[in-house]
């Protein structure tokens, strides 16, 4: 019998807060973190809103507890801040006391910093300390820097499946635990805003000039965001023997590919439907057991139709309460799955359903609409968290209340 997988520590940083408590406070206050960038050098500075973490790199060094140095990118720093909180919350002092793996997720690695020096790096006439950023060009760099600074020495990996990256990191870690390879894994993702990504999504005409409006008839696209989040996962037997504080259970998950289009989901939501259905089956729950769905809800034209259709097909006339928290944080790409897994856990532990901000007009293609004001004192037992990405990479997680 495979082990159950429990969540025993969480840490995060986003546009709405430097830690989990800060995020909860802003969710509770229904205050968005969207605004205009202070740190990316782009012609869209005052045009396209983003969910930027409210710290310069200098200030992030301090938050992350490391001396200012070349070679540590914003991606790494955001990750470090979230990682330190997750480990502290899980009561992990010495990482090597128990073999612990680390599965990270990233879409463009240290691009946030390398794009600023890239043309110096490729210019033979130029020399300087910017060469220290050469290593940060790939996705493994942030993972290894974080691992080396906090002391991971066991299994490490980095996953990149676009917007579902950190959901897949959580899944991979959970599976390694179920296979008996490790009793404890720390999984999640980190993402910093870049001019590269902003222009990428903008070239696809997927970015809204207003604050994003998921599931609204007038929505015209997403806002990008940045942040990082990590969850400490432990096997049931270890968590109990170790007297870990169990916050919840990762009870189900599914990764599926839609095989429909390189960047767009199918209009009927086949992939989303299959991901949710299989994750629920693994969790052993039925439609009636689902208290809340933290939808992917990017507010692109295609995502919201596709995901909405999938909800209607899966749940019929009984679609559970759902909302997108992207209007709080922006779409944090590789970090989104882990950030929203923590929001799902907060929904369970605090009895809250978070509002889908900026919604005003029902989509004509759908019968359903999201929760628009904060709901308190709700019994939340099982939450589905969706992450769907480029390349047809779909992932759904089920986070459940721990009844121990």
């Amino acid at each position, binding site marked *: 019998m495979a082990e159950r997988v429990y969540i025993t520590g969480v840490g995060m940083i986003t546009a709405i807060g430097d830690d989990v408590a800060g995020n909860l406070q802003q969710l509770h206050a229904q205050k968005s973190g969207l605004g205009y960038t202070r740190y990316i050098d782009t012609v869209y500075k005052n045009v396209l809103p983003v969910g930027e973490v409210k710290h310069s790199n200098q200030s992030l060094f301090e938050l992350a507890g490391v001396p200012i140095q070349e070679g540590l990118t914003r991606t790494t720093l955001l990750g470090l801040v979230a990682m330190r909180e997750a480990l502290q919350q899980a009561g992990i002092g010495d990482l090597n006391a128990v073999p612990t793996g680390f599965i990270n997720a990233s879409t463009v690695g240290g691009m946030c910093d390398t794009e600023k020096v890239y043309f110096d790096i490729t210019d033979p006439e130029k020399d300087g300390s910017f060469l220290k950023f050469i290593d940060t060009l790939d996705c493994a760099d942030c993972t290894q820097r974080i691992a080396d600074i906090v002391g991971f020495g066991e299994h490490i990996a980095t996953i990149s499946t676009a917007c579902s990256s950190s959901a897949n990191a959580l899944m991979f870690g959970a599976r390694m635990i179920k296979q008996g390879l490790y009793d404890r894994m720390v999984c999640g993702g980190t993402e910093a805003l870049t001019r590269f990504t902003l222009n990428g999504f903008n*070239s696809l005409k997927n970015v809204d000039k207003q604050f994003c409006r998921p599931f609204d008839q007038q929505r015209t696209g997403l806002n990008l965001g940045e942040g990082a989040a990590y969850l400490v996962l432990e096997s049931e037997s270890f968590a109990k023997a170790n007297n870990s504080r169990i916050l919840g259970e990762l009870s189900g998950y599914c990764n599926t*590919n839609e095989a429909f289009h390189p960047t767009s989901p199918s209009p009927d939501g086949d992939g989303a439907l299959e991901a949710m259905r299989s994750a629920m089956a693994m969790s052993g729950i039925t439609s009636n057991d689902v208290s809340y769905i933290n939808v992917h809800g990017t507010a692109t034209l295609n995502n919201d139709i596709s995901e909405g259709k999938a909800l209607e097909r899966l749940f019929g006339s009984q679609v559970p309460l759902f909302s997108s928290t992207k209007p709080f944080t922006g779409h944090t790409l590789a970090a989104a799955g882990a950030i929203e897994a923590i929001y799902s856990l907060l929904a369970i532990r605090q009895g809250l359903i978070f509002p889908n901000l900026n919604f005003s007009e029902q989509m004509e293609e759908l019968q359903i609409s999201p929760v628009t004001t904060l709901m308190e004192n709700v019994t939340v037992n099982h939450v589905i968290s969706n992450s769907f990405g480029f390349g047809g990479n779909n992932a759904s997680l089920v986070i459940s209340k721990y009844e121990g």
Partner: protein
Amino acid sequence: MKGKCYIQGMAAISPQPTFEENLFSAQLLYTDNNLLPCKEPDYKPFIPANSLRRMSRMLKIGLTTALKAITDSNLTVQGPIVTGTGKGSLQDTEKFLKEIVTYQETALNPTPFIQSTYNSVNGLIALQQKCTAYNNTFVHRGFSFENALLDSMMLLQEGSDHVLTGAFEEITAEHFYIKSRIGFWKSEQIDSRELLLHNTPGSVAGEGAAFFMLTQEPTDQSYAAINGLKLLYKPSAEKVLSTLQAFAPEVDAVITGRNGDCRFNHFYNIVEQHFDNIPHIPFKHLCGEYDTASAFGMWLGANLLKHQELPEAWFAKDQHPSKPINKILLYNHFYGEQHAFILLERV
């Protein structure tokens, strides 16, 4: 990772003529400018012309290798697709970076951005095969292919019948220059055939793709079994030796990622000294050094196990095994950081 799986089909595009018939009489292709580029095949039999025009080089190499591995296995892809790549499509990343500057962030063509996404090859294979199963991409230097392999072995243990597992990497002139600035390549220009004779810092750059159809059960056609995988992150020399002692049983040959870089040769020395009476088969003079070169090493090992021979021109006479090879240890590390041991067995 324990557990056993089988290589039912495979294919490689590499700097050698690995994609053609008559592998064992293949010539040895080489370079004298420290960059071994892929010998690219004619893609037309695999990819329709109208798709081909839109695809960048990495996507063509990755997709074509995957398709040939599928054909070679006589299976259809209904199962998971898992890949590893250290850098993805560098050409697209470079192009988009430049176009942002050239066109001052306006009216950009999204194609290079889309294709630069690390999971684009995986998505393309799934799309092309209409395969909706599990799909994952690992992007961690010398652990990219290895984690894809681990994921695949877990999927087979969890009940998947077969998994398509692969790795792909490209090198561009620009990236070659960038990495030369931090000592990845030899500063003197060498003949790649003599890579291992140059005891100096750095190696020779390479690239390539290798895909494997892995199954739970063997058939008459299986190339080899994979029955062990062990990864070590930034280990000490002692840790490499103790892991070797704990992990590796008796083997008949060691395939090593030895790359001529004097800064990291000591790790290969440990492994070769541990197995001093059996053939040591290096492969980086064939494919060059890159994040996922171990996938080429595994492709070579699986061929050796199945056919009991190596392409004649690729190795000196005394390097060809003279006794039957039933078990192989593949040991590779990427610039001393990510170390991998893979055990292969004859079926």
